[in-house]
């Protein structure tokens, strides 16, 4: 495990999540643009959980776990919110978002563009976002 911590559901926590994860990835040899992209994907998933899943309820927390095994980085984000999304949004091209002046949904497209595998599971009432990426560790 290279990271495991909980944060309060408020937007202002996103920067600390990025800073902390970025430093931890760097320590484990994930650097440069690859580190930046992984941090972006995790930031987007956490923003979804905090803002859409938990409505920025500061009485709630989300938990972030990251592990690196044999060149496979797995990040899981746990929250008890009500995050729902339309999977059809992922099939829409960017013009759809532009035409409709949409601010939402872009984050999921970014996550899918960056990570090799993305899953959303409901486990005992907890929403688990799992993101997996093969990383050439330097």
């Amino acid at each position: 495990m290279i990271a495991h911590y909980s944060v309060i559901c408020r937007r202002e926590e996103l920067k600390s999540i990025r800073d902390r994860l970025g430093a931890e990835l760097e320590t484990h040899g994930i650097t440069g643009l690859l580190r930046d992209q992984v941090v972006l994907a995790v930031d987007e998933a956490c923003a979804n959980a905090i803002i859409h899943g938990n409505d920025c309820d500061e009485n709630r927390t989300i938990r972030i776990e990251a592990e690196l095994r044999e060149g496979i980085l797995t990040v899981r984000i746990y929250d008890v919110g009500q995050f729902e999304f339309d999977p059809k949004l992922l099939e829409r091209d960017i013009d759809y978002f532009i035409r409709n002046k949409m601010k939402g949904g872009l984050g999921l497209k970014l996550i899918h563009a960056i990570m090799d595998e993305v899953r959303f599971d409901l486990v005992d009432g907890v929403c688990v976002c799992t993101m997996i990426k093969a990383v050439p560790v330097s």
Partner: protein
Amino acid sequence: MNTTNKPTGLNLISEPIVGALILKISGELDASSSLDFDSRLKQLIAEGHTHFIFDGTELAYIASAGLGVFISNKDDVYDKGGQFIFFGLREGVQNVFNLLGLTDLFTFVSSQEEAMDLLA
């Protein structure tokens, strides 16, 4: 020159020039700071500004919420004949635009001089 320094880690400096407004964005444009940035940009558009030159030399990070601000305000500017021109974006920030295929949507140049030449 007008400076807006919000506690969200984003700093905006707007500098009017002939025919355009240069907006220097410093810090990180994420799901938190993009709320203030969206309000400020909408205010500037409401004031009648149409040609925006974004100085990204000190923009360290952008998330989808930041991109969403540019996308959602684009028509209000372009419909009036204006445009969004970006210069000096760092590799990591430019990469986020690239990942979503937004490079054809806006204009990207390498320097403020190039941006101003486009408006001349």
